């Protein structure tokens, strides 16, 4: 591993993408429009594709995805949060706030990866940069529509943003200024209030997660774990 792309970084980014993909896939067959169903599935697929490349760069993708307990995962907390105010909820306003925050950070991380000296990591980064650019654009367009749409949509997307914002600190460690330079103008154009910085939950990168992750993993790993050693 080069100095710009350590195994720890790749694992963190890979786990972010894997868990984000699992969350996004909850939207399948539930999106507000059929076009959005296609778009969200597509973003989930991109996240899964990036996760597979990143995890394969540090180990066996299935061993990593299916055999670790939650404290073995290194994703930031934002990735694992429910896409709505509580467990099991799916709220489109929360989801777009989440995607804006996540994809802006992923774009920066992948850009740095692409510019690094580790060839394999750079190739992964270069591919993922293009996808993140699209994800960020998709989230941006929706933030504008929801922020500037109806009173209800404004209220709901602001609520999601307020709920998720604190998790942005861990997400953007080391890239915060560059990240704010992407996100703040979107919020301003959407007429949304940029939440204040106060609470800064973290721990994901060290394997200390929220209560949500172990539920997500229980479902994701259930079939694989029920058949130890089987091939699929």
């Amino acid at each position, binding site marked *: 591993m080069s100095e710009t792309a350590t195994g720890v970084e790749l694992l963190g980014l890979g786990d972010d993408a894997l868990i984000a993909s699992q969350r996004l*896939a909850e939207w*399948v*067959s*539930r999106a507000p429009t*059929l076009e959005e169903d296609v778009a969200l599935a597509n973003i989930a697929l991109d996240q899964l594709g990036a996760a597979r490349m990143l995890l394969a760069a540090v180990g066996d993708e299935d061993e990593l995805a299916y055999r670790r307990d939650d404290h073995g995962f290194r994703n930031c907390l934002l990735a694992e949060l429910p896409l709505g105010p509580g467990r099991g909820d799916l709220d489109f306003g929360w989801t777009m706030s989440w995607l804006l925050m996540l994809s802006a950070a992923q774009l920066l991380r992948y850009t740095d990866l692409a510019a690094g000296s580790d060839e394999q990591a750079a190739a992964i980064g270069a591919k993922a940069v293009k996808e993140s650019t699209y994800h960020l654009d998709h989230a941006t367009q929706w933030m504008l529509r929801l922020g500037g749409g*109806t009173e209800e949509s404004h209220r709901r997307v602001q609520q999601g943003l307020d709920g998720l914002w604190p998790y942005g600190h861990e997400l953007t460690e080391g890239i915060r200024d560059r990240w704010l330079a992407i996100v703040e103008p979107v919020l301003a154009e959407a007429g949304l209030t940029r939440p204040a910085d106060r609470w800064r939950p973290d721990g994901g990168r060290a394997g200390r997660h929220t209560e949500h992750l172990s539920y997500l993993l229980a*479902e*994701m790993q259930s079939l694989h774990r029920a058949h130890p050693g089987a091939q699929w």
Partner: protein
Amino acid sequence: LDGEASFEAVIAADQKIEPRDAMPDAYRAGLIRQIAQHAHSEIIGMQPEGNWISRAPSLRRKAILLAKVQDEAGHGLYLYAAAETLGVSRAELDTALLTGRQKYSSIFNYPTLSWADVGAIGWLVDGAAIVNQVPLCRCSYGPYARAMIRVCKEESFHQRQGYQSLYVLAQGTPEQRAMAQDAVDRWWYPSLAMFGPPDADSTHSAQSMAWKVKRFSNDELRQRFVDMCVPQAEILGVTLPDPDLKWNEERGHYDYTSPDFEELMRVVKGDGPCNRQRLAHRNRAHEEGAWVREAAAAYAEKNRKVKA
């Protein structure tokens, strides 16, 4: 040439009817019904397969399944667009699905109970769909025929993936083999029923044939499907759940037991294992998305005014 004569001439010449061409009202109405039902089937079909995305047992299989379900949404989009060329609006089509006024394929009213169902659906359900749909690529209505070419191409890909996924299970651990066999046991007859009632009882078929929308009878297609599946089942090493299945030298086809058409009618009429669940799921997604669609419309309207 007047409209009717011109329509008949195009059909006779095996050429395509296009949206602006004159066409009989019944041709238009029949096509709208058929294309809409097909589109609705893609949309509802996302649910049974989507049910296993979160639990797919390897990341590779998860990616394949997610891509497949995404393709189904995409097929729904092309097919709705094809139906719209016949003068029906997307909103009317949505309402027809949500209220149960228009049907979708009854096969999606069965539950997916194990991972092997994903493979069995790929092999049998997509397989049956392809047998049904390949002739539609030559259907007389241009937009539908062209949509079907793209759909069939992707479905063949899905079918191969499903078959391959099931093959791995059938060669796997005893539990995996049992899972594969159980899935085939549950999906075989519902797949046969996908070709519709027996020719003797089939209503719309004769006119559909004359208009070159439909080109083979239900029973012809069903036979083609059975003949295709038997050797594939042998390679897989699974048993098709029909003790009377055997080669008939004289007919040059496999004899087989017909599906239970009474069961099919019960499911069509709403009493399959998952009819209520599938429709409730769709309605809920629609209702919960209302505020988002309203916001998008309001935003577009504001921007239109600003630009005007």
